[in-house]
């Protein structure tokens, strides 16, 4: 081939095809339909459980009002979305590397505890140091906790799903123990509760000058930074390239000279750091202290968030916002229409089922999809 021909072929190959219809369907149509269908089915379930049609209507209005209907509602949505997104990122990055990190819940717990310890210590430290230090403590603790699973997986081949489940249970019991003993238990209390985070370690509320009830706090900046950082890491760095290669084809990664053991430990540490940050975020921004079940299952909901977000940082952010909205709106629903909060859990579960079964969506809503060309 002559130099000129070679150049022209090269130029042609460098052209990127416009994003195809299939991609659009995968990224947009399927999730949107999944959410819509889940909400409709949620309505049917309410009907089946004896909620009157009028009340169901009220419930959906409340669901919207409680999530996006007012500034305060948006604030609640963002507050709920923050830990879900952070922990969701941690699960997503593990997915990308081919690891199933069920352990976010435990990592959230140890992260929260570490943040609270730093948060109630160091009286007199300026907030500009105290807040980052407490966040860092949460991240490091989460990273350490998850690395145990990563290290066991890399060194012995023990499956990370089982180890992270075990680590979850250990973290929960550890929390119970710590909350009943000094130095973490609050002085003079018999019930399991920790000391309060010092004001200098609190993530400041952003709009309390507007309305003291607005709980949204500086943690959302941490979330934004995390989303951007993880996106950069996955798609713009050599480390992310290794993660993705190892996740899609571990044999090929090995062939290419990547060190799979190191990748596993690194990914788990990073996933744990993000989940730990989620715990710290809750403790420093919302709760101010640690109590049993303070994590509220964030680490498990985050699995759904990562799945719905297709393990893409931006997708995880959007999914986190949706789940945050469902939580915030669900509380309003309970108050206004007397519908149980469990309906929200059902809707969330339905969303995941539909996301996990895209062929079902394609079959039922064939009009929304282009004809399958191959297979």
């Amino acid at each position, binding site marked *: 081939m002559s130099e000129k021909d070679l150049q022209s072929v090269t130029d042609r190959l460098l052209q990127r095809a416009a994003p195809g219809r299939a991609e659009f369907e995968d990224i947009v149509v399927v999730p949107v339909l999944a959410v819509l269908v889940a909400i409709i089915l949620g309505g049917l379930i309410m009907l089946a459980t004896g909620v009157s049609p009028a009340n169901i209507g009220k419930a959906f209005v409340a669901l919207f009002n409680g999530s996006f209907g007012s500034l305060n509602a948006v604030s609640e949505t963002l507050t709920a979305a923050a830990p879900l997104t952070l922990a969701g990122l941690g699960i997503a990055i593990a997915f990308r590397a081919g690891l199933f990190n069920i352990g976010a819940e435990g990592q959230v717990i140890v992260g929260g505890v570490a943040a609270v310890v730093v948060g109630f210590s160091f009286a007199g430290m300026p907030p500009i140091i105290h807040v980052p230090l407490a966040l860092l403590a949460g991240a490091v603790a989460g990273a350490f906790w998850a690395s145990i699973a990563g290290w066991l997986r890399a060194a012995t081949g023990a499956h990370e799903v089982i180890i992270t489940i075990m680590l979850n249970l250990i973290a929960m019991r550890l929390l119970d123990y710590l909350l009943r003993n000094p130095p973490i238990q609050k002085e003079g209390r018999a019930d399991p509760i920790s000391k309060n985070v010092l004001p200098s370690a609190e993530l400041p509320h952003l709009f309390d000058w507007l309305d003291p009830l607005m709980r949204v706090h500086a943690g959302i900046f941490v979330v934004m930074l995390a989303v951007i950082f993880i996106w950069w890491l996955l798609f713009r760095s*050599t480390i992310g390239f290794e993660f993705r290669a190892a996740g899609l084809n571990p044999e090929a990664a*090995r062939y290419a000279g990547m060190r799979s053991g190191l990748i596993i430990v690194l990914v788990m540490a990073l996933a744990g750091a993000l989940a730990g940050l989620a715990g710290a975020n809750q403790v420093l921004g919302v709760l101010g202290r640690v109590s049993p079940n303070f994590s509220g299952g964030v680490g498990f909901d985050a699995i759904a968030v990562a799945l719905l977000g297709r393990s893409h940082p931006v997708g995880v952010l959007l999914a986190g916002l949706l789940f945050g909205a469902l939580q915030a709106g669900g509380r309003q629903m309970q108050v206004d229409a007397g519908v149980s909060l469990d309906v929200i859990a059902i809707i969330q579960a339905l969303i995941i089922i539909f996301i996990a079964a895209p062929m079902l969506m394609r079959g039922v809503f064939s009009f929304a999809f282009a004809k399958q060309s191959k297979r």
Partner: protein
Amino acid sequence: MAAPFQEVQSVRQGARSLDIELRAITKRFGDLVANSNVNLSIRGGEILGLLGENGAGKSTLMNVLSGFYRPNEGQILIDGKQVQFSGPGDAIRAGIGMVHQHFMLVPVFTVAENVVLGVEPTGPVDYLDMKKAREQVRTINDEYGLEVDPDALIEDLPVGIQQRVEILKVLFRSAEVLVFDEPTAVLTPQEVTEFYKIVRMLRDAGKALVFITHKLHEIHEVADRISVLRGGKIVGEGFPGKTSDKELAEMMVGRPVTFNVAKGDFKPGATLLEVKNMTVLRDDDSVAVDDVSFSVRSGEIVGIAGVQGNGQTQLEEALSGLRRVTSGTVKFDGADITNSSARALHRMGFAHVPEDRQHSGMVSDFSIAENMALNTYYAEPFSHGIVMDWKTVRETSARNAAAFDVRTSSIYKPAGELSGGNQQKMIIAREMSRNTRFLLASQPTRGLDVGSIEYIHKRIVAARDEGDGVIIISSELDEILALSDRILVMFKGRIVAEFADGVRQPSKNEIGLAMAGAVA
């Protein structure tokens, strides 16, 4: 189910011989036309050779015939009567049987058990009559001289015999038309000869046979009539002996093809790679490579022949840093590289084309550009520190894809969407577009079409002519013979024979015997 047995009986009494007509068959998958207006006749007592490159539509056509696919247009006529198959079951009942490239046998079952599987002779209360089954299998076995022991366990049988079990299975279901999909790919040269005998005997017994292949010499050897498929269409017909290889290849590829690999003069330099007493274990700690020693000089192609599973895979892995060498040493250019990592070897200028390209040579879901950087991503110019330089990666990939004839519309496409030949060219492009000193290529052209094989062979020879040391591991004897300056034969983990070009040109038969373990 007693019916099949009765049919078998009836067949044996009055052998019916089927004539099959495929008329204007068109099969589309979405926008892709796999078969377009194909006419084909298959007659009893004749072997039809169906020749075509990968992706020419051979398998699709045969899947239409055997009921796996329904054609969009066209008809299938059996003895002049139009039939419609709604599944493979219909085709089998009509007497059409397929012998797949990958055997579908239960390894822990006996031959008889495998043969009757799904159509077992039963007595009252669904009693499984194995005695009857064995008798039936033995009858067919004797009738066609297949020489298979009905009581042998499949896992104990060599591949060639396993293939006969597949044939038995089809015959047991009273097939009159037998379709063989690339039947020789897994056989040793001796087994191939045996296989030809069986095929001819089936023909003489009045069966109609379709022999799918992309290998020209096979078609000459065994077919009575040849049809060539290209781009889903029948592009020509021929007769063995009358139609030349050149004509057939041109029909198949659509342009003139050169068969002989043009090699420069053999001017070997200093010894590059030296393997001494190397032993390598399998995952289950059995010995795969047993105390092997050999060397490769600069500018030399060493071909390692052998039937698959005789330690070549582990040898390849050990030489590429993917498997531990248990004992012995490997030296490269005088330096000890025993158990060096894959990356260290890559840095030294090793190019490695792995045996199973999709399994380990590439990431199917990665774009072509990402795959082209799969093992060079960590260094300049593709990354700076830990920051990937995607612009450089893409530009280099596009240039290499163009230079190595990787046919695609864009380097953003997932590598998994490329055809096998283009995937392999992509891997070759990645491995050989750098400054290399050594090339280790395992099964470099397995399953590829004539055009891609020609191109890849040219590249391998070019590396050798530039002074690289080259090892080719292949179970394809023709490839070994065409490329190698020196041939080593592996059997049960040992090198059992060495044939040096120039000293004595080995015959195919000699190498074949060594591959089967019979060392002269």
